[in-house]
């Protein structure tokens, strides 16, 4: 029981820190609340789809910005727009915020600005992915130890 309580406390502290650092917002909490006994892996599945989406969009943005003949900023913007939608739907606040800045550089057709934003997106996405994977591992440890996942408001 001590082990379970320790793990639960770790989970709560870690989860709280992710919200405090602005990595996740309330939308992620809403996703966690949708998960139930019939769909116990819902959040992990949504996160996996988000990671795939992100990686594809980051590659698209990178390729479009590398074009020597001239950057198609509309194409870049389309990918950023999609990423903004996905990131707000999962509660990835910092990724979403970078997308907002990124879009203004697309509109201004500023390649340097776009490239900087792309680097930021890559950084924020990697951070988010690592942190979420840690969170999911903690969840798994709690369940393996016979405990239940705390619900955080």
């Amino acid at each position, binding site marked *: 029981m001590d082990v379970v309580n320790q793990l639960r406390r770790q989970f709560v502290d870690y989860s709280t820190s992710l919200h405090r650092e602005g990595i996740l917002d309330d939308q992620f909490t809403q996703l966690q609340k*949708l998960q139930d006994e019939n769909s116990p892996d819902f959040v992990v599945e949504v996160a996996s*789809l988000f990671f795939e989406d992100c990686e594809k969009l980051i590659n698209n943005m990178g390729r479009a910005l590398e074009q020597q003949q001239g950057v198609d900023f509309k194409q870049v913007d389309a990918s950023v727009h*999609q990423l903004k939608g996905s990131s*707000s739907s999962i509660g990835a606040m910092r990724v979403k915020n970078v997308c907002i800045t990124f879009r203004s550089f697309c509109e201004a057709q500023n390649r340097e600005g776009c490239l900087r934003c792309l680097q930021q997106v890559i950084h924020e996405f990697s951070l988010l992915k690592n942190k979420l994977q840690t969170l999911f591992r903690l969840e798994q440890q709690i369940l393996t130890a016979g405990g239940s*996942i705390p*619900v955080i408001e």
Partner: protein
Amino acid sequence: MVLGKASSSSLSMKSDEDVVNNNNNLRVLVVDDSPMIRKLHDMYLKKFGLEVQVAENGKNAVELFRFGASFDLILMDKEMPVMDGAEATKELRAMGVKSMIVGVTSLDSPYEKQVFMEAGLNYCFNKPLIADNISFLLQELNKNNNDKN
């Protein structure tokens, strides 16, 4: 604040059992090119007791109706390959589809949202769709159904 037990839903299924039962006959079509969004909306809607089908783009949505499918509510993304949400909405209205069509988009500009609305939407919400949006839409749907009876 920590509530304690695992896996609770923001919808208290026991106290909302009547709501779920009332919604059992309502069919919803989710049209979005993102597998993540389709999964998310599918889950939200099923929590409300709705029957959900998904389509990857506007063309697939239109074809479902052409082949005789019917839905009470269509959640339509704007930016999709093959046929976007505005085009699909115009096609559906031109076919005489009277279902409630609701845009769900991450468009920033009020002008772009207005253009989307003018394609024939009943409402337009920002992504992500939340439980309050769905409650509102269900109230409107049930109101419309009561008016018809």
